[in-house]
């Protein structure tokens, strides 16, 4: 057996993803350091890690979003690399620079690449220059509402106003007519400024009924890039994904090949290294347009793992250590169908209000080809300070129809209850059993139309 690429990895994250990263590290013979806030002191990811350091109070700004804690903890514990997970500091180029400045390998792309793809307005231009199709929109940021109105008239309504520094489905506003635009522009700028600390926004044509299809890519330091097929994330509500699957139903071989080609070309154009996701929209006529490049591991990465048999965290770690990609494009085999359901502590009947609380009952499903990634155990309390993700349920089967049946079966086994706790499980069951989903005819508008009683 070859020596592990790192001795010890500090995981600058929490919850299910921190645990998932630590599991792969252990399989690779790498020791782990967890960092945690006061609210997470009893969490499973803390108990699982070889070492754990208390870095701050519950408020993310003073714990998981603060750089000194993980850096000091890494130095103290003798870690040689830092895995940022998703969210928090994962897409902050400054954090990657600070890691490097302290002799720690940041497990992710190079900071300059993170900076250029993190600016959503700029990456649009980079991809257009690399020959990828983009939606009609502004060249870079739109500084004033008057500019926005002039541009929108050229682009044609509806238009979407997006925060240049946005991500995770936040900082997006849709204007259906010139009447809406000043308000949408103002609101998006204000939100971008308060949430992302950067009020820059850009404009794009809004596609009413499209599919959100993203392609997983891996790039190594030698400049090799492969793609691992697509994931369809069209079942979403207000840009928050609820169900993801692969392969994307109803894609022709031509579109699938086009997506793979664009994903690799785009990643190569920016010198991408590590695991990344190229997001596209596919409209009802099969036209593909680039949306954004996410420079991190994604929540829904297990869907790709299920189809390819490739552990994406392991690949991230290997690439960060300077090792070449373990697979060539022709070695990538996409087998069967996989579905991921995000079980959130939210009440769909009350506008998806988060429902933090104690999990008196938390029975996760098992059985064949059924994977549950969760940071919680029975008796745990879901803290109110972080996202509401309770668990990801991922199922695999040889065909999509069997995968749907398996997802339905597994959701039926999944029981969660506690004082005040509601979950998205009933809604997920409704979605995966819906004839429109079974037929693969849903678009990004489907969930909202269903909830409005229009489907």
């Amino acid at each position, binding site marked *: 057996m070859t020596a592990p690429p790192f001795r010890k990895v500090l995981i600058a994250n929490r919850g299910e993803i921190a645990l998932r990263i630590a599991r792969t590290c252990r399989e690779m013979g790498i020791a782990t350091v967890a960092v945690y806030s006061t609210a997470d002191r009893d969490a499973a990811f803390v108990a699982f890690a070889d070492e754990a350091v*208390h870095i701050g*109070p519950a408020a993310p700004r*003073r714990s998981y979003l603060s750089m*000194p804690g993980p850096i000091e903890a890494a130095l103290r514990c003798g870690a040689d690399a830092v895995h940022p997970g998703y969210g928090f500091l994962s897409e902050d180029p400054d954090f990657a620079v600070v890691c490097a400045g302290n002799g720690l390998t940041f497990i992710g792309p190079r900071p300059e690449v993170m900076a250029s793809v993190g600016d959503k307005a700029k990456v649009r231009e980079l991809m257009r220059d690399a020959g990828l199709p983009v939606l009609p929109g502004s060249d870079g940021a739109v500084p004033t509402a008057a500019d926005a109105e002039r541009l929108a008239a050229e682009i044609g309504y509806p238009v979407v106003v997006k925060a240049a520094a946005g991500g995770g489905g936040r900082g997006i506003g849709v204007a259906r007519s010139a009447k809406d635009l000043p308000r949408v522009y103002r609101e998006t700028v204000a939100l971008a400024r308060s949430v992302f600390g950067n009020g820059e926004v850009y404009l794009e044509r809004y596609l009413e009924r499209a599919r959100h299809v993203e392609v997983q890519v891996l790039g190594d330091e030698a400049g090799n890039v492969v793609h691992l097929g697509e994931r369809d994330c069209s079942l979403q509500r207000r840009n928050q994904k609820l169900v993801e699957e692969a392969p994307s139903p109803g894609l022709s071989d031509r579109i699938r090949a086009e997506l793979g080609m664009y994903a690799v070309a785009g990643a190569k154009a920016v010198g991408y290294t590590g695991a990344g996701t190229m997001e596209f929209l596919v409209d009802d006529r099969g036209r593909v347009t680039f949306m954004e490049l996410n420079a991190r591991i994604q929540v829904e990465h297990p869907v790709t793992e299920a189809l390819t048999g490739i552990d994406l965290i392991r690949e991230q770690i290997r690439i960060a250590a300077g090792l070449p990609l373990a697979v060539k494009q022709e070695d990538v085999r996409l087998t069967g169908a996989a579905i991921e359901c995000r079980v959130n502590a939210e009440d769909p009947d009350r506008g998806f209000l988060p429902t933090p609380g104690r999990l008196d009952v938390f029975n996760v499903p098992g059985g064949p080809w059924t994977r549950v990634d969760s940071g919680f155990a029975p008796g745990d309390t879901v803290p109110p300070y972080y996202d509401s993700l309770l668990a990801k349920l991922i199922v695999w089967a040889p065909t999509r129809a069997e995968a749907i049946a398996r997802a339905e079966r597994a959701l039926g086994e999944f029981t969660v209850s506690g004082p005040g706790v509601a979950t998205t499980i009933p809604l997920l069951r409704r979605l995966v059993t819906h004839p429109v989903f079974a037929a693969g005819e849903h678009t990004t508008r489907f969930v909202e139309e269903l909830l409005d009683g229009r489907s």
Partner: protein
Amino acid sequence: MSEERWSEEFRLLRAEVASLIKTIPGAVSTVALRVGDRAVEISWAPHGTAATAPRVEPELPQESPAAPADVTDPSIRSVVAPLVGTFYVAPEPGADPFAPPGTRVEPGQTVGIVEAMKLMNQVPSEWPGEVVEVLVTDGQPVEYGQELVRVRVDGP
């Protein structure tokens, strides 16, 4: 790095601080700039002095698991680490410690320093009283919420 480069960096840093002071609510008490590591250190007046004081965190570090169970004397309070880093009892090596046992302290008086990412964070006592114990030796790593110094608070 050339002289010109230094001053350019300093100018940028100063502009950054000026904008920070304008955008963050509360009254600023001290500002420290350093160009070598591009450090910026800003201290705000203790909350309550300004009408727009930043929101106080809802939880107390004293509730952390590091807080001692053996202290039953209600007049003994613990000063805990405000962040992860290295604890120092004195402002610089060889200098007199801030607050060895027996020292009288007032609220806001520094009892130690926690260094994190080359920034020195002064740790004040919140209470008037006498330092009875310093629990961490000089130069040792500390976690957030770890008990550093015990103070016997003045009686009513």
